[in-house]
């Protein structure tokens, strides 16, 4: 135990001084004299003073709790049960969180209900798609795992929106769900600092200062850590429905987790229910694909990960398209009373972007047929995912319904479609670091925050993992601003907006998406990840070399000029615009329909560049004007938007705010002006009022401090001699 203590202490100390170096902290009022000195004093102080930072308090609290427990077998096993970070849940959020935390050096424990279901894909085994692929690229740029696993386990890959602009180009991979889970599990199992344990967490253990101390399981085990990440997915009080029949379950065949919701409610958290569902699976061997339209993967495969080590091409599988028929519609119309929504026994409506087949048929009656996608779930599993065909109909009607689809006339059903209802915690209870506002050290990620999708889960997972480790280490937490990334946009939306359905990332949710592209996810986020320690030297070197090549190439294209010749002729043919003599290659690339490939064809390309790098160069040059304009619009806005709001601001006392704004702001407690402006019910006038209050408060504080200085100076004048160091000492003692 003693060794752990020392180790943790050392880590804390290291973290503290390290973070001072990394981030220019603007010191808070009582420690502002000299950050360096203050750090020094902190190190030597004993953890009983009132101004001790939270991590010291926590540390002493943990030590006290473990020694005062009823059964204490000193030195035999208790030391093992203390960690820096505990992650509850082994889904896509949990895996990223645990990996990030362990990779940052925190001793991490992953608690999951079933080790065999780590990183399971209970719905469509696919990764990416519009907006979601950006999330995957960003998680990868931060050193996450989802992109690599998807690259390793793909069955089929396609780039969507190829011709619709660089910002909406999206990679989508159909993955092998068994292989995916196994690959992720083996990564999790082989990561140093990371332990796995099967357990059902029922209680959060609290310290004296509203801080988390650990978790308690159903069988009475206690695991201690200063940071706990909850990624409970659909398991908290989960209940699955098929037709009118329901049973408690997190997913079909897996028991739900009970007790945690009540515990969280007792701690003062607001909880609510959400509903989602998954369609039936059919046996691929009973489907006749001969008459169906095949959907092949891309010939030239693209990758989620920026790490070339996982860029290994494999054979692709085919997806197929079928359609609903008149018979399908007939069965549904005849049995509408048997569906939860139209039968009236479930009020909660599913997400708008994932309507059930009965919803589609009722709402769009003029459509005679709806597209249905048939997607394989693995190379070694016979299951076929029937995309676009989720239903709340009872099981006895599901097979007849499936058999109305062309190609599926003789199919056999492996799993019925079902819906799942689960508890979530409206995410306005989290800060943008994903730490809860109520309890220090407690983080939420994934479906517990009301999202849906593996990518959304992974994105939150990596942020909460990073922050859990940093919190345990006494470092500042990381926040990705809305404008920085899709991850930032996702989290900002979650903690600010009032969600009524599971949140799915969509391109239209991002106002500045031209700046948040897949191709520049690394140049936006990898430097940060490198600085905090998630990107190792190998990746960092690869990254720097890539950036250098891109930048060199852009310089080359600016300087090389051509006059006439084949290239000029081709360019003017392709673009329909004349090419002037002595045009730079850059100016050629800016012409409509002109692509880097044409430079290659005429020997003006740079053969040292990879396809991805050429694409980066092309985008940077072709859309330079737009990108710069967006950037400048963003900058104009950001200055004001990023102004911090004090955490203790009493909105009810600000009479210049509208009543609605006072209520909403008190509930959400936004961290910045920009976030406040996005809270529903807050008008521009309210924002102006807030700005005025901030400025007024600042002036008042300034007045007071001026007054204090005056007094201090007067006092100083009275005293005859004041030693040089006294000021520092006063502050630190």
């Amino acid at each position, binding site marked *: 135990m003693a060794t752990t203590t020392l180790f943790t202490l050392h880590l804390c100390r290291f973290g503290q001084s390290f973070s001072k170096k990394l981030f*220019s902290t603007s010191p*808070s009022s009582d420690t502002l004299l000299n950050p360096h000195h203050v750090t020094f004093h902190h190190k030597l102080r004993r953890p009983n003073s009132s101004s001790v930072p939270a991590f010291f308090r926590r540390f002493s609290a943990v030590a006290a709790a473990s020694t005062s427990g009823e059964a204490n077998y000193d030195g035999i096993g208790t030391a093992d049960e203390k960690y820096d970070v505990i992650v509850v849940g082994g889904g896509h959020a949990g895996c990223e969180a645990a990996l990030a935390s362990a990779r940052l050096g925190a001793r991490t424990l992953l608690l999951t209900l079933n080790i065999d279901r780590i990183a399971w894909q209970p719905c469509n085994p696919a990764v990416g798609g519009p907006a979601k692929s950006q999330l995957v690229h960003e998680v990868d740029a931060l050193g996450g795992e989802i992109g690599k696993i998807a690259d390793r386990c793909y069955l089929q890959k396609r780039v969507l*929106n190829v011709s*619709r602009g660089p910002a909406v180009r999206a990679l989508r991979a159909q993955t092998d769900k068994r292989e995916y889970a196994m690959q992720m599990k083996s990564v999790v199992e082989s990561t140093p600092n990371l332990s796995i344990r099967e357990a059902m967490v029922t209680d959060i253990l609290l310290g004296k200062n509203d801080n988390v101390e650990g978790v308690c399981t159903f069988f009475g085990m206690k695991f201690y850590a200063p940071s706990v990440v909850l990624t409970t997915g659909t398991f908290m009080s989960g209940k699955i429905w098929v037709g009118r029949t329901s049973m408690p379950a997190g997913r079909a065949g897996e028991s739900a987790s009970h007790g945690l919701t009540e515990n969280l409610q007792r701690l003062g958290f607001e909880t609510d229910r959400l509903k989602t569902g998954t369609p039936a699976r059919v046996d691929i061997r009973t489907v006749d694909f001969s008459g169906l339209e095949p959907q092949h993967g891309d010939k030239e495969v693209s990758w989620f990960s920026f790490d070339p080590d996982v860029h290994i091409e494999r054979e692709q599988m085919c997806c197929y398209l079928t359609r609903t028929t008149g018979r399908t519609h007939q069965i549904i119309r005849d049995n509408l009373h048997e569906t939860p929504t139209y039968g009236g026994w479930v009020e909660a409506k599913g997400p708008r972007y*994932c309507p059930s087949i009965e919803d589609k048929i009722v709402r769009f009656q003029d459509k005679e047929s709806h597209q249905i996608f048939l997607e394989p779930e693995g190379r070694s599993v016979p299951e076929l995912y029937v995309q676009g065909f989720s239903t709340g109909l009872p099981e006895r009607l599901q097979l007849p319904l499936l058999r109305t689809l062309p190609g599926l006339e003789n199919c056999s059903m492996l799993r019925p479609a079902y819906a799942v209802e689960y508890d979530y915690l409206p995410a306005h209870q989290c800060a943008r670091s994903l730490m809860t506002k109520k309890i*220090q050290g407690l983080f939420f990620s994934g479906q517990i925050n009301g999202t849906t999708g593996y990518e959304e889960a992974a994105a939150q997972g990596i942020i909460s993992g990073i922050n859990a480790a940093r919190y345990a280490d006494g470092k500042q937490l990381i926040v990705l601003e809305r404008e920085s990334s899709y991850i930032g946009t996702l989290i900002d939306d979650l903690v600010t907006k009032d969600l009524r359905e599971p949140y799915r990332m969509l391109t239209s949710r991002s*106002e500045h998406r031209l700046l948040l592209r897949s191709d520049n996810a690394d140049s936006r986020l990898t430097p940060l990840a490198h600085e905090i320690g998630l990107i190792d030297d190998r990746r960092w070197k690869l990254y720097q070399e890539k950036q*250098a090549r891109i930048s060199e190439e852009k310089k080359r294209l600016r300087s090389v000029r051509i006059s006439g010749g084949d290239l000029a002729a081709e360019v003017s043919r392709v673009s329909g615009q004349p090419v002037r003599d002595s045009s730079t290659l850059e100016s050629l690339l800016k012409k409509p329909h002109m692509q880097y490939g044409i430079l290659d064809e005429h020997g003006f390309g740079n053969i040292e560049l990879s396809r991805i790098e050429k694409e980066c160069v092309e985008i940077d040059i072709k859309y330079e004007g737009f990108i710069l304009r967006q950037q400048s619009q963003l900058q104009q806005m950001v200055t004001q938007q990023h102004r911090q709001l*004090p955490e203790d601001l009493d909105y009810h006392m600000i009479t210049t*705010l509208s009543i609605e704004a006072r209520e909403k702001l008190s509930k959400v407690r936004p961290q910045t002006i920009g976030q406040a402006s996005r809270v529903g019910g807050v008008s521009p006038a309210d924002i102006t009022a807030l700005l005025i209050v901030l400025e007024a408060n600042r002036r008042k504080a300034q007045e007071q401090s001026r007054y204090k200085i005056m007094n201090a100076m007067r006092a100083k004048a009275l005293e005859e001699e004041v030693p040089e160091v006294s000021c520092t000492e006063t502050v630190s003692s």
Partner: protein
Amino acid sequence: MLRASEKPNAVMAHLPALRVLLRHINCLIPPPRTSMPALCTIRATCHFLLLSPKPRKLHATATSKGPENHALLLNRDERVARNVTPSDVVEKGSTIAAIVTSLGGPPAAVGIVRLSGPSAVSVAGRVFRPAKRSKNNDWKPTSHVVEYGVVLDSEGNVIDEVLAVPMLAPKSYTREDVVEIQCHGSEVCLRRVLRTCLEAGATLAQPGEFTLRAFLNGRLDLSQAENVGRLITAKSVAAADAALAGIQACLTRIWFDLILQCNKIWACGGFSSLVRSLRMQCIELLTEIEARLDFEDEMPPLDLNIIMDKIHSMSQDVESALEAENYDRLLQSGLQIAIVGRPNVGKSSLLNAWSKSERAIVTEIAGTTRDVIEASVSVNGIPITLLDTAGIRDTDDVVEKIGVERSEAVARGADLIIMTVSAVEGWTSEDTKLLERIQSAKSSTGSLIPVILAVNKIDCNPRAETDWDRGCQSHDIFSKRVFTCAVTGQGLQDLERAVLELVGLDAIPSGGRQWTVNQRQCEQLVRTKEALERLQSSIKEELPLDFWTIDLRDAALSLGQISGEDISEEVLSNIFGKFCIGK
């Protein structure tokens, strides 16, 4: 940054070492020995601006609780940052403009348009041409030195002779760069100058915004600021006026007698329905396009021609609205109103009473006015030329005959006709005849000139008001009917209101409020026009679909004056409402 772009490889290789060194320097510099938070923030900012060798920065901000401190990641794409040269570094914050002298009262000799914000000088430079022109095209004013010159519109026409007073930050009212353009005091002048500034890139100031900026930038004391707060959040005009009185006690040059919730009044403005419909069209187009971006597989392909047609017709709408906009035209050319009627019904008295002058000779003798007499009045800022005409009758008097002909000619050319009759005599057959003559004049020009019936001398026959309806039921050609008395001035306000209603500027409160509301919509249309122009050039350059959404979003934003996030939400619910998507 500069070095990095010149020698990326060399610099990159040394970066880590350099950074460590800089961090140490950073730690060694003793902070100033004060405890003023402001200073500390400035210091913190300076640190990373000056010492960070990389453009991307981790910005740490301290909040009250220890570990809840956040390292904020500003959006800096390293690839873009490498390209940006210092001159590209964008200015922060917008530049606002407004007329800061009072409007709506009697014309002053001089009026002032004020610009404030980081690009105040460059906006002013675009519209202002100093008399002593330097060879360099950029206007580089010396702070607090008045310059004489002219304001030009976008086509290079001189709008007004002005004095420009540059007051560079921080020595100005708002502590930003401020340029005040002193024009001639007529409202037409002021508004045209303001419009030119808006077209050159300034934004119309919100009510109280100069004062707000002054406060937020550290000027004014707290009590004044509270009044600003009240003004900004005032829910009614009366409340705004009350708050204004509070500020005016301390401050001069504030004319922001407006309320922020202009939206509520917009309903009655000239542009509002167009603005609404344009916004809806933008959202619809965004819905169509963005649905395809998010749900590619599930949507029928987009008919680009239809989209392009819609965009084209939208920009035409905007353009024609901006060109033919009633008010704008009126502001520039004014309004011509012909007062016609039989002899001796009190036309000249009406003109004198209205223009508060003795412009026309008034006698008891019928046919006193022989020629067309002009007088100028201003109704809600619109310059109006009143044209008193000879009484129209069949006459043998050669001089009077010419006068009558001129009267008819004037009536034909006027924007509006006030036909005056006498309440004492009631409607006569001559009046019917006269009306026919005017009507024939109308048909010859092909366009309908609105006619107001003014029943004058109402004081001599008060019963006429009730009797009148029976008298002239048939004459529904009159757009309006008012009862006036030129002697007492009774009914003149009704007359003004009738005139405003007829030119489409009804429901106008006093003092130019409505005008400002219109001006805001006008600005919205100007911004929309710019966005649509960019959009059309994107289409012309055959840029991918996603780029169209950028300018459509801009257009929708400028039409709605709400946040971008709201647009996203609106587009999304439209997508889900309209299309069958989702797997």
